[in-house]
Structures are given as structure tokens and as C-alpha cells.
């Protein structure tokens, strides 16, 4: 996978650059030692998003009937369930694995290759898991917060897990290149379109979008690793000045 190799090299470069620009001072967030670098990549991503991705996603949302968008979302969701099944097995979560397996079987056969989400109608629960969560489940700590170019918020653990997640991504196994790239493009646009509303809310509620996204992302990933029930952190203590 050349993309992985490329990104790996990029990361090494970025990390070595970042070491020279570590966040210090009383305001430094312990979970985000690379804040200056992360902020730079964040504003790069934001510029790209505003110039290209958001307009395209907006057109996509306005031009396609919601039924079509639902189908597209279901289709990619079904592929995601395949990978969730593998990761549930890797975490020894029998019930969730069985449920994911059922979802994929039902949706692929009766839902026309996943275009319809029949499994949800049948109330077969969804347990989304990726390899970053699997690593977290087995005790790998998240490490510092990272903002990846174009890919957005992440942390060291989830970034290391990405190449493995790509191995489990059925879209990347499509032989015909034009089809493969069209599918990748469609998925990106579809996912961005889903976030349009959230983006508007974010503009209104965040005093500093970078901090808001970071603090929400770190909590959300921790929550996912513990399947919605993380052990309590001593958060009163955290308020104390460091």
C-alpha cells in the first residue's frame, strides 16, 4: 500500500518537525503536546474543506433525493459492518460479532448489496468497531492528539491503526481503478454531507473550534473504546491549574 508508506514518511517528518515546536507554558494541554503543529494542519484542512469539500457536499445534498443518499450511506455502512465484525472478533466480543455478521448477511442478501438497511428494521443492533478501538480495548493508550492532513482529528494509536483499517476496507480491493476512486470519492462526499448540519451547529457553539473538536474527539474515542461506558475520570481534579 503505497499511500500508507507515503503517509508514514509524512508522519515521521511531521513528528520530527513537531519536536522543535512542542507546546509549552501553563495553557499546554497534556493530551495535545503538538498543538502548534496540529493547529497549522487544522487550518490547512479547514481551508481545503471550505474551498472544495464542503461546497461539493452541499451540492450533493441538494441535488440528490434523500432516498438515494440513504442508500449510499447504507451501502458504505454495510462495508463498515464487515470490518466491525472482524474487530469484534479480535476483541472477543461474541454477541457483537454475531450481530455484525447477521447485519452483513441480511443487508447484503435482502438489502440489495447493502443499499437497504433491512437489519436495522429487524432491530439487529449495530456495533461499530475499528482497529484503533481494538488496540484501545487491549490496553494501548491513545497517545498524543494528532490532526492528520485531509483526514482530520486522530491520535497516535488510531493513526498507527489506520493502515490496518485500510486493509479491511473492501472499497480499496476494487480492481478497476476508475470504479475504486469513484467509490472513495463518493464515500468522502457522502460522509461530509452527513456532517453539514453538525458543522453549522459547531460554528455557533464553539468559541474555539480547534479546542472544541479536539476535546470532543478525545472523549468520543475513549467512550467508543469502552463501548459507551468509560470508567470515571477524576475530572474535578483536572480543573486545577497545572
Amino acid at each position, binding site marked *: 500500500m503505497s499511500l500508507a508508506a507515503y503517509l508514514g514518511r509524512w508522519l515521521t517528518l511531521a513528528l520530527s518537525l513537531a519536536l522543535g515546536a512542542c507546546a509549552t507554558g501553563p495553557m499546554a*494541554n497534556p493530551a495535545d503536546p503538538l498543538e502548534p503543529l496540529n493547529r497549522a494542519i487544522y487550518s490547512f484542512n479547514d481551508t481545503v474543506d471550505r474551498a472544495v469539500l464542503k461546497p461539493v457536499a452541499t451540492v450533493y445534498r441538494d441535488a440528490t433525493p434523500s432516498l438515494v443518499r440513504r442508500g449510499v450511506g447504507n451501502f458504505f455502512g454495510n462495508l463498515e459492518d464487515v470490518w466491525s465484525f472482524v474487530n469484534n472478533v479480535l476483541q472477543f466480543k461474541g454477541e457483537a460479532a454475531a450481530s455484525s455478521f447477521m447485519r452483513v448477511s441480511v443487508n447484503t442478501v435482502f438489502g440489495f448489496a447493502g443499499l437497504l438497511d433491512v437489519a*436495522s428494521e429487524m432491530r439487529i443492533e449495530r456495533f461499530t468497531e475499528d482497529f484503533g478501538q481494538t488496540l484501545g480495548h487491549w490496553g494501548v493508550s491513545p497517545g498524543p492528539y494528532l490532526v492528520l492532513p485531509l483526514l482530520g482529528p486522530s491520535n497516535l494509536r488510531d493513526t498507527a491503526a489506520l493502515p490496518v483499517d485500510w486493509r479491511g476496507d473492501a472499497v480499496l480491493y476494487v480492481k478497476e481503478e476508475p470504479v475504486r476512486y469513484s467509490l472513495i470519492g463518493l464515500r468522502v462526499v457522502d460522509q461530509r454531507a452527513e456532517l453539514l448540519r453538525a458543522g453549522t451547529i459547531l460554528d455557533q457553539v464553539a*468559541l474555539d473550534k480547534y479546542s472544541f473538536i479536539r*476535546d470532543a474527539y478525545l472523549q468520543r474515542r475513549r467512550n467508543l473504546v469502552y463501548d*459507551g461506558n*468509560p470508567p470515571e475520570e477524576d475530572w*474535578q481534579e483536572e480543573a486545577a491549574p497545572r
Partner: protein
Amino acid sequence: MKTRYMNLLTGLFAGVLLLLGPSAAATDEAADAMINQLTTEVLAQIKADKSLRNGELARIVALVDERIMPHVNFRRMTASAVGPGWRRASPEQQKRLQDEFKILLVRTYAGALSQVSDQTTVAMKPMRAAADDREVVVRSEIKTGHGDPVQLDYRLEKTPGEGRGWRIYNLNVMGVWLVETYRSQFAQEINAKGIDGLIGTLVERNKANEKKG
């Protein structure tokens, strides 16, 4: 003779329990029962009232003030979002922080009400808490009819004094605690511009949001 006496005793005992029952429940209602009742009632109100779902702010603020705020310790919520700076703030500043933070949050969640449909339901999750806990976490899920359910958890504290019930002091949507998400943003503002700077930023943001509608 002896068994009859026993029966009488049991009967009396049961009668006393029956008499005590309702009032005992009223003084010591469980936190999850309170949340269940509150969310079910508010949800029914939203379903029945189109102006709430359309995001009519005046109506939503009225609903929040009447139905929700009595069950929220908003002072504690604001204080822990503001962090160590709270103690340096004057009572006047503390009041303004609470007022502006509330407007910001109400406006945020007002948009989400448009997503409520007839299929929307609340399901409570089992709560683990000892009877004498002063602070508990209540967990629930909002089901929308399609898509993944939305995780919605609350932190509650027991109000000192018998029978005063529980009050919410933090809220978790999809694994993200509200107070924690604002803490570093507020600290940034205070460090750069002081308490009044933070108040100013909140006022400005609320004005800008008002213009956008």
C-alpha cells in the same frame, strides 16, 4: 390463637407500609426514575407542539425555564466549565456567565429539536448506584427510528435536604461531556482576556447567532 395474632400483626404492618409508601417514594425518588419521567414528558410536549420543533426560540426558552431548569444545577455546571477562574469572578460576573452560557446552550440544542419525530423514543439503561450515593450517572438512549441510537447520559447530584430531589450538573451526548468540552475553551479566553473577556466573547457569540437565526 397465636397465628391469628400473627396475622393481625402482619396486617397492621402492611397497612403502615401502605400509608408510608407513597410519601417515602416522594422523598427518595431514584435519579433514573426522575430522568425517565422528565424526558418522557418533555419529549411528548415537543411532539405535540410544532413551534418547538420549528425552533421558535421564545417558546423553547420558556420550555427550558419551566420544565428543565428546576432540575438543573446550572450554577455548578457553569462553575466547573469556567474552572479555577470561577472563584475569582464577582457574584455579578458569575451571574452574567451563567446567563450567557445558558443562551448559548439553548440555542445549540434548539436546532436538534427539528430532528424529533413521532418515532423518537427514550430508553433508560440500567443504573448502578448505591442507595446513599450523593452523585450518580444516569444513562439513556434516544432512538430516532432510523440510524444508530444517540447516547444521552446525565450526572446528577442529590440536593441537600430531605425530599429535594436530584439535579443535573453535566450532560453527555454520544460520549462527549458538555462541561469538559467547554473547559479548555473558557480557560483560553480567561487566560487571554480575563473573566470580562470571556463574558464579552459569549455575548458577542450569542449576538452573532441571533442574527443568523
